[in-house]
């Protein structure tokens, strides 16, 4: 989140990064659990599901945002569902024509994208209140976050449960890596539903632990920066009376600290935004 802030001060990239990291639909918002647990049995399935959901998410966010002033408030949910279902049907037909293997692997979960909480939630919470450009970016970010999460879970589950890495087939080409004797020793529990819950829980715990630590580090850094500024602020005035050169140095230092404090304030703002999102 803070990285995105420093990279893109205008905040457009922030919307995308928000979907991938701070409000990752799987690991942070815990939405769309049904396809997540059912489809992430292999990395390739996860990728297919993620891309399908991303396409639907971007298109539906676009249309919902365009029509947000036309749709009456009382019937907005049926209207959203209708829009989403249209795009899901299109994606379904395209997949069936061009990637039949993936179409079979996704099974019932492909039409079920219609009722995927992520898509409905973004239409309701974001697209219906924001401009077209921002809504498309939000859909893209959320979709990428969902895709990344599914691929990560699918990679772990496939590796542990089947002993392969990214096996799949697209058209006539089949790719992927079978690791020697690994399939004989693989723990098949990880491609079963129980393994899905286990992997999701452990990955989520790891992500929470990492982000909690990062947050703590950032807070202590902010606090240290703020303390330093506070302690050194009176220095220029007193030093100025004694020695001009020293005072200049102190002032430039003070500026540096002020920068740090600004960054700290920005980070705090970003955190508030996160809290608001959740």
């Amino acid at each position, binding site marked *: 989140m803070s990285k995105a802030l420093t990279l893109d001060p205008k905040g457009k990239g922030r919307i995308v990064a928000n979907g991938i990291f701070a409000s990752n639909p799987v690991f942070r918002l815990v939405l769309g659990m049904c396809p997540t647990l059912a489809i992430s049995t292999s990395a390739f399935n996860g990728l297919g599901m993620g891309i399908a959901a991303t396409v639907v998410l971007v298109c539906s966010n676009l249309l919902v945002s365009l029509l947000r002033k036309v749709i009456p408030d009382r019937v907005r949910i049926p209207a959203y569902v209708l829009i989403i279902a249209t795009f899901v049907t299109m994606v379904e037909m395209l997949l069936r024509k061009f990637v039949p293997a993936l179409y079979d692997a996704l099974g019932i979960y492909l039409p079920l994208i219609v009722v995927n909480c992520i898509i409905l939630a973004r239409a309701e919470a974001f697209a219906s209140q924001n401009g077209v450009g921002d809504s498309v970016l939000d859909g893209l970010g959320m979709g990428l976050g969902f895709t990344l999460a599914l691929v990560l879970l699918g990679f772990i589950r496939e590796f542990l449960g089947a002993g392969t890495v990214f096996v799949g087939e697209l058209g006539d080409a089949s790719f992927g890596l079978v690791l020697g004797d690994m399939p*004989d*020793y693989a*723990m*098949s*529990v*990880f491609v*079963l539903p*129980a*393994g899905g819950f*286990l992997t999701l829980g452990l990955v989520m*715990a790891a992500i929470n632990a990492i982000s909690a630590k990062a947050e703590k580090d950032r807070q202590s850094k902010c606090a240290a920066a703020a303390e330093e500024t506070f302690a050194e602020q009176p220095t220029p005035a007193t030093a100025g009376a004694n020695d001009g050169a020293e005072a200049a140095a102190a002032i430039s230092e003070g500026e540096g600290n002020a920068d740090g404090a600004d960054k700290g304030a920005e980070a705090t703002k970003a955190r508030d935004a996160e809290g608001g999102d959740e």
Partner: protein
Amino acid sequence: MSKYIVSASPHITSPATTRRIMLDVIIALLPALVAAMLLYGFYTLFMAVLSVGTAVFCEWLFNVITRRRQTVGDLSAIVTGLILALNLPPVVPFYVPMVGAAFAIIIVKMLFGGIGRNFANPAITARIFLMLAWAGVMTRFVAPIDLSDGANLFVYFKEALNIDLPAAITTATPFDAVKQALESGANPAEGLSALDMFLGRIGGSAGEVSTLAVLIGGIYLAVRRVIDVRIPVIYISAVAVFTAIFYADTGYVGEYVWTYLLGGGLVFGAVFMATDYSTSPKGGVAVLIYGVGLGLLTVIIRKFGSMNEGVSYAVLLMNIVTPLLDRIRPRPFGTPRVKLSDKWLAWKRNRARKKESAAEGGECVA
């Protein structure tokens, strides 16, 4: 002055520490371990060492990493490792008990808060995890060795790494025969010897084949008052009763009952796993429901399930129900008895009041 401890009542001290209880359980498990070693050789003992070692190491490591108070000293990790090893088939590749013990300690026990806070028995959950992970390895059993030649004690070390055991040394468990008999309508006890099954000279999981050894441990625990004797007694008799009911129309009720009591992991599960303190209920009625539920589930899974054995799944399911059973509270000492009909009336009054307030637009009943 520091020698005098000032504290509020009650001033009762007891030698029953966690460590002492766990030591008792370890002592009670020793007969089963010795029996497994005599039946299947030293490889089974080696598996137990691996399992216990991994369990203790994982608990130590988890406490170090998360900077918690070190709890290895209470010996509960040793008990978990030992029970898990005795729950496995006698010959499995070395990594199976290690993964199982790590799963039991880290995921089932420590992530939920350590000893006393686990939602299910760690050993049994790990066994189910291993069943799902390596179904092939976990369902092949070897025949007991011939003890007249001492070299036989080492015979399984050679085979252990092989995932496909040679057919010559694998054997069927009594329940394979029982299941077949159930399908064909034949006598289930055909070719089974009650004495062999009591002593453990059959195929099966390392620690649970010898009913005699398990019973010795169980009696020790009962005498030391470590376990709640009601649980195994109710559980085992419930299995007998439900077997008689479910198999009443087969014409071999007696045969089914004794094969079901001696054949699988029933006695081991009832004595060592269903009685886990943190996952079994305390009150009288709750214990009764717990035991009967265990028996009913075991018989249902054994008869209708695709697997031969249902003890581990029954224990896991009833472990999960335990928090609900613990809400059945015994009447506090000194309070008047409330008749059931009065309770029912009070409940109805309460509900009517809630409905009224809901009709007025207050809180929702649902």
